[in-house]
């Protein structure tokens, strides 16, 4: 797996497949990137579990902080990590004991640890490094273009609205039913 550059279909596949996301290093401070990502993903319909031992038990935007990954009461599809690269071995040591194993290990923008990535891939997980799921979701749905950001995607298909509002877009396939 080449981690210098990801195909859009790889990222889209992950974001469509996972439903439950544990965010390691989540913050209760509304100006921190980890808070913004946690809230955004929850609003996009994911079941989000913030993990931060210092905040355990605290409730923010309807989400309850847990102390460790093992405290998550249901199977985790994806672990999103807001920790510096040197802390990744410790995070992986926790992740690899979870049963069933998560399907995806995602390291945030600025976080890359190739040794841990190789271990996770050997265990059957998909790995994403140095990316933000909020930015990737916004990019693939078309939302991020509202801010003048280069989404690096082209589509002649109408974007799909998400939920009741008019200012949320979905990453679901835009093709008509039956198309592949």
């Amino acid at each position: 797996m080449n981690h210098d550059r990801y195909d859009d279909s790889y990222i889209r596949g992950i974001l469509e497949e996972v439903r439950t996301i544990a965010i390691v290093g989540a913050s209760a401070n509304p100006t921190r990137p980890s808070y913004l990502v946690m809230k955004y993903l929850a609003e996009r319909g994911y079941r989000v579990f913030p993990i931060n031992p210092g905040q355990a038990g605290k409730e923010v935007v309807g989400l309850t902080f847990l102390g460790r990954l093992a405290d998550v009461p249901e199977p985790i599809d994806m672990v999103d990590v807001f920790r510096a690269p040197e802390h990744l071995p410790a995070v992986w040591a926790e992740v690899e004991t979870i049963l069933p194993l998560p399907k995806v290990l995602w390291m945030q923008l600025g976080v890359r640890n190739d040794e841990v990535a190789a271990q996770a891939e050997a265990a059957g997980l998909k790995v994403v490094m140095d990316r933000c799921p909020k930015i990737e979701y916004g990019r693939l749905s078309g939302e991020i273009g509202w801010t003048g950001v280069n989404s690096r995607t082209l589509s002649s298909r109408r974007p799909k609205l998400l939920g009741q509002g008019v200012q949320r877009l979905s990453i679901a396939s835009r093709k008509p039913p039956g198309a592949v």
Partner: protein
Amino acid sequence: MTEDTTAPAVHEPGFATLAVHAGAQPDPTTGARATPIYQTTSFVFDDVDHAASLFGLQAFGNIYSRLGNPTNAVLEERVAALEGGTAALAVASGHAAQHLVFHTLLTPGDEFIASRKLYGGSINQFSHAFKSFGWNVKWADPDDISTFEAALTDKTKAIFVESIANPGGVVVDIAAISAIAKKAGVPLIVDNTLATPYLWQPIKDGADIVVHSATKFLGGHGNSLGGIIVDAGTFNWSATDRYPFLSAPRPEYQGMVLHETFGNFAFAIAVRALGLRDLGPALSPFNAFMLLTGIETLPLRMQRHSENALAVARYLAAHPKVEWVSYPGLENDRYHALAQKYLPKGAGAVFTFGLKGGYEAGVSLVSNVELFSHLANIGDTRSLIIHPASTTHRQLTDEAKVIAGAGPQVVRLSIGIEDVADIIGDLDQALAKV
């Protein structure tokens, strides 16, 4: 890390495809295929929490057209894609773009280095308007790169150049100036108005920020003002504490740090959220629509502009009443080598030439053209002509006119996309009367 060498290369769309499609998706609610003109000041919130998220920069979305507008956003993403940047911001004019860029980078008492060879309006803006903000310009000569290094001080916050310098004919060695900027740890800002990304993508040569007067070749039809700021995503704003709009907690946003939060498009967010929001030079969505429509044909127009300009430059160089022609597409031009390096697809449409008959000849020429329009703009489908000494530079002393490249014999052309035989025919009949 294991390398998967069997994966197919990620396909990148070509420039002409991006010029038509980048940023523009069918409208999600109506299916409209052309980009609608969202002629509205404001946008309803889904609910109170959604409003709070938008105001706090926590969610992507629309609030008020001074901060962003869906029509303008398509223009922004399109130009970001064409320049190879991470994001862009569209504003009311090229001057507004420059104002917001420097507002984001400089505080009173700071300095920036600018090329001496710039559009006259930029020289005025930097010399006078910016001085009253306490932003001090130091001039350097793009024909002597060492003058940029010599102008650096510990107060220098940025370097500013034009890729092809107005009034045309000067090609600036962006890669060499970028090397100086990188060594000094300051961003390089390139005004790419005359080249457009079709002829030159300065980000590939080390520009950190690209600005445009979209009024010119991007729009291309002489019908709408607009300005664009493109974030290359290359500069590390957090390496020092010299760019606090990017690297320090912002009181305007409850202590958010923009570079940490928005990564490689933080500058585009900063010029929007801390510049456009507070200083206010918003672009009309109608103008954004006109500029977008123009950009769809940018590759075709720039090819034709450059082909026509080269033919006109060759005609003038052989004309007995013409003393000199300054067009880097000509083989004997002093900038021809730089043009071959940076502008292989053409040297653009704007250039100057000198008439042997001096001031009177210049006045006679602009008085006798019938296809060329005598006016003070460039980058139109129409061919344009101006005699700076009798118009834009008339108030200067003769000596000052020469220093500004607007001596009595100088005529500036912006060659349009008409049939080249008609363009040359018009100059020929007017020169015959000189």
